[in-house]
């Protein structure tokens, strides 16, 4: 048994690498983009706010799987050809930025307007006010919601199989079909659980970091 599991490890490990790559690239790029989305969504420029609202609706209102398919097959039609990984990552980032955008919007709206007024009478610029006064407080507020999205993202990474990229779940499925065994899938499940456990722990740490004030 152990010997069998041992033979599975290389392919599982390759799959894990792809999963992590999708995970981190999406996370690192979609969070700042999400902040931007929330700013656009709250913009006083009506057109911008409306377009952003539409974008958020499309991204949250349709399955990520469909979005991946549309971008993967749609981009070449309009003459843009990118490699598979880039294509799929674009879909992930667009999708997650919409979710993060709504989370940040909620956070920004929950900040007391007295904070803006205090910054204003001190003469701080709107940019400075946002970066130094508002955003740090928003991060603390939205951290638990971001944590939930991160766990969802770990599991969503399996969707990259649609464009033929070999990630964790796919590696497990191939082995499972080949050997007519559930063991590879069980192994994959364990890896997912470990991943989510680790990220949950990391988030708890970060939340602690932010608990220096009330």
């Amino acid at each position, binding site marked *: 048994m152990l010997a069998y599991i041992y033979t599975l490890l290389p392919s599982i490990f390759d799959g894990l690498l792809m999963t992590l790559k999708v995970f981190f690239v999406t996370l690192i790029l979609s969070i700042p983009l999400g902040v931007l989305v929330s700013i656009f969504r709250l913009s006083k420029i009506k057109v911008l706010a409306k377009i952003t609202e539409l974008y958020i609706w499309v991204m949250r209102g349709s399955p990520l799987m469909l979005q991946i398919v549309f971008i993967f097959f749609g981009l070449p039609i309009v003459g843009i050809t990118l490699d598979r990984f880039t294509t799929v990552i674009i879909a992930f980032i667009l999708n997650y930025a919409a979710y993060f955008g709504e989370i940040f919007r909620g956070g920004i709206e929950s900040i*007391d307007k*007295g*904070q803006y*007024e*205090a910054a*204003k*009478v*001190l*003469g*701080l*610029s709107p940019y*400075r006010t946002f970066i*130094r*006064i508002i955003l*740090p*407080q928003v991060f*603390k507020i939205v951290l638990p919601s971001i944590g939930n999205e991160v766990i969802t993202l770990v599991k969503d990474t399996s969707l990259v199989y649609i464009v033929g990229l070999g990630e964790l779940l796919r590696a497990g499925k191939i082995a499972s079909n080949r050997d007519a065994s559930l063991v590879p899938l069980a192994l994959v499940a364990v890896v997912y659980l470990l991943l989510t456990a680790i990220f949950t722990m990391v988030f708890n740490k970060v939340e602690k970091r932010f608990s*220096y*004030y*009330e």
Partner: protein
Amino acid sequence: MILKVNNLNKSFGGKRVLKDISFGLKTGEILAIIGPSGAGKTTLLRCINGLEKADKGTIVIDNIYLCKDQNNKNIPAKSKEMKKIRQKVGMVFQNYNLFPHMTVMENLIEAPINVLGLSKEEALNRAYDLLKNLGMEDKKDAYPFQLSGGQKQRVAIARALCLNPKILSLDEPTSALDPELREGIASIIKKLADKDMGILIISHDMEIVKRVATRIIFMAEGRIIKEATKEDFFNSFEDGRLKSFMVS
């Protein structure tokens, strides 16, 4: 005059909240604005701090127009002037509005560094001196949630003073404080008015007003009903409205 307000008018959705308000403030003066709830006191202070746009009238701060009438419109200061005005007027909010994620010191140095362009060193020194004057230097690394109401009040005052304003405005500085703490804030306020600064203070607390004010404006329903030196004011109780306000 560091502050001149002339014929100031302000409505909220058709409701006239300030009606032809005119008054002035000199350095060294402590002008108390009193009056019943809803009189428009806070709105007036907010207009002077550029947090609320007037509909009509002029506000001049240290010879710079914060707003004026032109072609039947009220024109606010351009952003360059506004920047100067912001440095000249300090505001202490009723609920302090300290930045909760920053220490006391960080609350104090943010604007001097970013607005006045002081070096961090200079800003720290200035903030420390102010805190020391207010007896708060041992709290410099505390976060706002760790402070009592009176201590937060002092930090809010120190934060406003860090920009060396010409006018310090305070909205009900003692309303949230225990009686024992009010005395402390009163003596601080009294010490602050000097040749370089005038103070505007809204208060319901007649003890405080009696103690600190040099001049008093009584407002009701958006109008200034009476303006007088403190002595004259307290000597003339014949106005029934004044009396009823004092008693309440």
